């Protein structure tokens, strides 16, 4: 977690700006005029109940889903307007940690980490690739798993390897989709600490989707509460916990 001072200093540098985002599936309105901004070096947690549209939001941000209306500007570029190549260029600056980790089962840990590198940076040499893979695994403390298959790793290790894969391209923004889901309390805490450590080391901005209150408390500079498709509250964890609003209190009880 970055200090308040750091966030204040870089307050003008908005890396992500979401305006009036709407997304529906048939008659189900998932996101209704949703707004959010993310400042360089900041960590924002989007908090909401299961099925509230958090994952839809993050998939719209990375361009996996196309919003019905509204804009998602990342580094000044509106994601829904970009063509495939332009979108790939923006995606190269964004890391995405999937809820299910999404490690490729048929590839070793090394190949999993090499995959995005080879795809985005075609001209990079094998020596450089090896060094980057080893460094990324070193960052998550799993250098020894380099030649293992994902199936041989525990849940927490898989999450760390997935995090290493998001780090390999040195992203400026990291999107976390429920990073602690399915993990025990101790492993969850380790993953959250690792996320904070990575953010401080690389000065990345983080957009974290979660309903884990430990994650919200430890990793957030700011919390955005998503309720019925809209942004219900947008404040720090410390302020929200003092709120008397019953809908907000419900999350902190």
């Amino acid at each position: 977690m970055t200090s308040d001072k750091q966030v204040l200093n870089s307050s003008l540098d908005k890396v992500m700006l979401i305006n009036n985002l709407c997304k529906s599936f048939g008659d189900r309105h998932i996101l209704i005029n949703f707004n959010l901004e993310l400042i360089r070096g900041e960590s924002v947690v989007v908090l909401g109940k299961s099925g509230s549209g958090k994952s839809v939001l993050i998939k719209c941000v990375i361009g996996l889903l196309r919003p019905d209306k509204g804009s998602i500007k990342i580094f000044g570029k509106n994601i829904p307007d970009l063509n495939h190549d332009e979108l790939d260029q923006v995606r190269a600056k964004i890391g995405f940690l999937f809820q299910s980790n999404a490690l490729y089962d048929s590839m070793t840990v090394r190949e999993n980490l090499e995959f995005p590198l080879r795809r985005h940076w075609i001209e990079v040499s094998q020596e450089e690739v090896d060094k980057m893979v080893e460094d990324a695994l070193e960052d998550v403390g799993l250098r020894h798993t380099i030649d293992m298959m994902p199936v041989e790793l525990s849940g927490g290790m898989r999450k760390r390897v997935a995090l290493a894969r998001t780090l390999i391209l040195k992203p400026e923004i990291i999107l976390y989709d429920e990073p602690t889901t399915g993990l025990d309390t101790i492993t969850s805490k380790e993953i959250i600490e690792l996320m904070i450590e990575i953010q401080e080391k690389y000065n990345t901005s983080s957009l974290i989707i979660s309903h884990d209150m430990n994650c919200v408390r430890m990793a957030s500079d700011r919390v955005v509460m998503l309720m019925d498709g809209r942004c219900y509250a947008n404040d720090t964890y410390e302020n929200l916990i003092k709120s008397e609003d019953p809908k907000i209190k419900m999350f902190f009880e």
Partner: protein
Amino acid sequence: MSLRSDFTAFLNGNGELFSFSLRFFRHGLNPPFEFAEFIKQCYVIGYKSLPLIGLTAFIMGIVLTMQLRPSMADYGVESQLPAIVAIAVVREVGPVITALIFAGKIGSSIGAELGSMKVTEQIDAMEVSGTNPFKYLVVTRVLACTLMLPVLVMLGDAISLYGAYLGVNIHTNTSFNLFWTQVFDNLVFGDVLPAFIKSFFFGFAVGIIGCYKGYNSSRGTEGVGLSANSAVVVSSVMIFIIDLLAVQVTNIFDY
């Protein structure tokens, strides 16, 4: 009412499969091409299927010969056994049985693999990593199936005829040279070519249906099982439909 909705769902499914096939041609013809993945898939789909195809073809050759022999002996044409078996294997039994086994092994494995990748977000992860997952996963597998099945059919036919040679020799003493002379004297170009051509269509059907079922998998792990299962069932039915059409076309050209 249920019958009507089932029929509508059937037509919708066919429409989606057709649209998926068009997407294959659109992506497959436009560079960049995923050569490394294509070669890997050729190895997995072609080479790794050879032992199973070879074994079943060998057994099929023996069994077909032994089943035909009594009837042919009754008509006094037992000496024509190698010729009849060769024509049956090359024109029909070889391509269809090989394609059905191929559908069981490869169609189900593609359906399950892509289905599991879909439900565990691996396909999304691929897209985020700057890769066109359709090109990387679907185009390579469908092309590998289309090109490898004809090769497997040819090899399977040859192995089957070796089985037939063994089958003939269980009851009679036929020399190796005599057997193969009878086989090649009675096989004509018109027996081999239509069978070879239809194998490409069989391969394409197995590949595209396996990929379609896997790529559109839903409902978690249950959906993965359903994708694998329906990939085999639909591609097996499709093999017979293509075979029926192929024989009509072959007859038009008088082969």
